[in-house]
């Protein structure tokens, strides 16, 4: 191997937070024009390694070599100067500014008299987008654009600063399927221009679609770096998870006797806002109903309406045959409904509060003695939830913000299952979650259904949807266009066509 090909090399990097070691002696390199996948379980240290390369954190030991020379990267600005660009997981754009103003933020082209020349920035933004072969209006205000365009703007911003290496941390997490495909094509084009990409994702199909090489981290150590052709999918999964997983995505027939009974939930002619139109369906105990649809098809909005967050304009919701008023989440909770929302950081958790406080928030009524909360009861209850759902946490008093993505998701699920709901709605329950945890969550869903609960699962990942659903409801523009029993769905492709309304 010729190290001169390496645009970036990290040698024996170690990093700890408050005495807890997160990265141990990790070496990592990127060659010109390659896509290098960085894989590993939740909390393995992927984002931390990349934040060191970006200058957000400084390594405790080790060195970074850029273009063959040791480089001191002590700030984000240093990283930018060294040609390292980042597509942030949490986007770093100013929503009230235009695309062009964002791209040249703090690097505005100046015109006569040292004043900012907005026309020049629009022109140059157009050039960058033309090189990327994508169509974005530089004069559009960012807040009016969808997430896919935000991402393109981020990429254009990095390219305008002459980035040679682009770091993408779970870039498809908030993209629709066709948008992801467009991103992949863009990555292919960037690669041809000699730009290197570090690609972090928990989705194996993406890694296979894009990557030339893969590095797997486990518990802060590098397990392997290999060309993708040299490792089998099984080896990768086992490397990430640390054990063999079989059949996680295979549909398993459960005991159907359970869901013969009367419907637990019935929805009749439900209308709510613009994205839920005349929706009717019913759900029996023990049944798992998958909701499929494109982004914007109204799946999340349907879930919100069922949980009393969005106002219902018309139609009825019946639980156990009784019409109920669902005008607030509290009423939904009282009726035995729980919603695990799609955005765990914004909607599921109070990030700065402790794991315990988060777990107990919907359960405060259970730990009251008289008007006061009983802290012993609270401790016992939260510890039992942590144990039951195998949440990995140093201490329940620690802020939930410090947990890795997968463990944060488990906290959200545990918090809701503590209320012992009869009807459970999960919106993208495995987003950002590693393969090992994903199979645990899918198993959890199956178990809950077997225990007689009615479950609704929303997912953009078809294999996952097909792995658990007994029935799939296909939504389009807010309406149900198909209601398909699992046994009628031959494969992913069938579902994909159904979703597109073909």
């Amino acid at each position, binding site marked *: 191997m010729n190290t001169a090909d390496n645009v970036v090399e990290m040698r024996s990097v170690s990093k700890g937070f408050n005495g807890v070691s997160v990265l141990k002696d990790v070496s990592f390199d990127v060659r010109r024009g390659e896509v290098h996948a960085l894989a590993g379980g939740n909390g393995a240290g992927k984002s931390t390694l990349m934040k060191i390369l970006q200058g957000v954190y400084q390594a405790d030991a080790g060195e970074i070599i850029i273009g063959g020379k040791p480089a001191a990267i002590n700030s984000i600005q240093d990283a930018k100067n060294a040609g390292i660009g980042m597509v942030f997981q949490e986007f770093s754009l100013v929503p009230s500014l235009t695309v062009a103003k964002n791209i040249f933020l703090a690097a505005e082209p100046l015109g006569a008299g040292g004043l900012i020349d907005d026309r020049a920035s629009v022109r140059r933004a157009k050039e960058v987008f033309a090189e990327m072969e994508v169509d974005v209006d530089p004069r559009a205000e960012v807040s009016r654009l969808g997430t896919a365009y935000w991402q393109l703007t981020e990429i254009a911003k990095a390219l305008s600063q002459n980035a040679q290496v682009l770091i993408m941390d779970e870039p498809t997490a908030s993209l629709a399927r066709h948008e992801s495909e467009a991103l992949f094509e863009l990555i292919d084009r960037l690669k041809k221009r000699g730009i290197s990409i570090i690609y972090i994702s928990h989705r194996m199909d993406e890694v296979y679609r894009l990557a030339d090489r893969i590095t797997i981290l486990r518990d802060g150590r590098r397990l392997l770096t290999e060309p993708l052709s040299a490792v089998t999918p099984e080896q990768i999964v086992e490397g990430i998870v640390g054990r063999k997983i079989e059949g996680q995505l295979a549909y398993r027939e459960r005991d159907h006797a359970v869901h013969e009974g009367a419907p637990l939930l019935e929805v009749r002619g439900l209308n709510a806002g613009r994205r839920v139109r005349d929706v009717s369906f019913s759900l029996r105990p023990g049944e798992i109903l998958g909701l499929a649809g494109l982004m914007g098809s109204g799946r999340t909005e349907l879930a919100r309406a069922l949980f009393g967050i969005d106002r219902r304009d018309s139609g009825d919701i019946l639980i156990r045959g009784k019409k109920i008023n669902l005008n607030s989440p509290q009423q939904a909770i009282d009726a035995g409904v729980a919603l695990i929302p799609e955005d765990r950081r914004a909607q599921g958790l109070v*990030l700065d509060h402790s794991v315990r406080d988060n777990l107990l928030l919907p359960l*405060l009524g259970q730990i009251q003695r008289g008007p006061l909360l009983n802290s012993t009861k609270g401790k016992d209850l939260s510890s039992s939830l942590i144990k039951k759902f195998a949440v990995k946490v140093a201490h329940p008093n620690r802020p939930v913000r410090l947990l890795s993505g997968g463990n944060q998701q488990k906290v959200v699920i545990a918090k809701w299952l503590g209320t012992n709901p009869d009807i459970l709605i999960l919106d993208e329950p495995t987003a950002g979650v590693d393969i090992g945890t994903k199979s645990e969550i899918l198993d959890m869903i199956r178990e809950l259904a077997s225990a007689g609960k009615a479950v609704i699962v929303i997912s953009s990942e078809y294999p996952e949807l097909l792995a658990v659903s007994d029935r799939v409801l296909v939504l389009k523009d807010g309406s149900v266009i198909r209601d398909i029993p699992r046994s009628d769905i031959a494969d992913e492709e069938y579902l994909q066509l159904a979703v597109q309304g073909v």
Partner: protein
Amino acid sequence: MSKANTIPAGDTAAPRNFGTFLKELDWRRYVIYIGFVVVFLFFAVLLRDQGFMTPQNLLNIFRQTATITVIAVGMTYVISCAEIDLSVGSVAGLASVCTAMAVSQWGLVPGILAGLAVGLVVGSINGALVSLLGIPSFLVTLGMLGIAAGVAQWITASAPQPILNDTFNMIFGSGDFGPVPGLVVWSALFVAAGAVVLNRTKFGRQVLATGGNRNAAEFTGINTKRIKFQVLLISGTVAAVAGMLYAGRLQSGRFQWGSGDELSAIAAVILGGTSLFGGFGSIMGTLFGALLIGLINNGLILAGLDSSQQQVVRGAIIILAVALARKK
């Protein structure tokens, strides 16, 4: 000691050795207590000949900070819920004059009810505008600051309203409970009740959750509009009680009572470690924040600084304390 904060410092469940305990002990959270002790010792040495340490002077400090402490307890709820209430000072003033007028017209009980009514009405209006119309509390209560002060001045034609009812004056601030000044009892009551409710009740947890992440609180079934309404109602009512304490101590109602107290109260709350962005609140911290401000005021007067110098030193100490307490 009762836990004044919802984020406990170390581990209470599993035993750990003292070294790790010390390392994990987040001293920034205790800056207010450390600061209080340091400033106290500093004055005790520097002003030993000016009578700083006499019981009389120390009681005076408590007495002078009582109204701010009471207001600041209500303010802690508002700020930890990620809102602000700028109207508390003028609400106190308005309550003092309404109480005074009602006492002299109709007697003791109607007087007390009139004072409380001021707080309930103003607090409800603030709360309704913020939670139902979604107007930022900064703007609503800024407007209310002017309105309440204006009304107080208007209905009294700027004249002080003397209170000749001795029972009222005894209850609200002039009287003593044995050796303990009544004002000290009042602030102890508010601090104790405030701390228990914030840390040990469902309502308190819901206030903190709403302040920490309103969206997540909403998705958890918390009626965040109601919570926002309630904290502003509490703050208004508590400010009205503080107004009655002014009236009782000074044996009159006057529109100027309490003016500017909103800033001292906010300073006390922030000094006490409550997050200006919501989500965390400490009533014990607030108490010590208020005491620290009182201590500084008292010490600077004894040291012979004139009021302009006092303002400068007080401002500098507050900035320093907040700077030390901030998260890195």
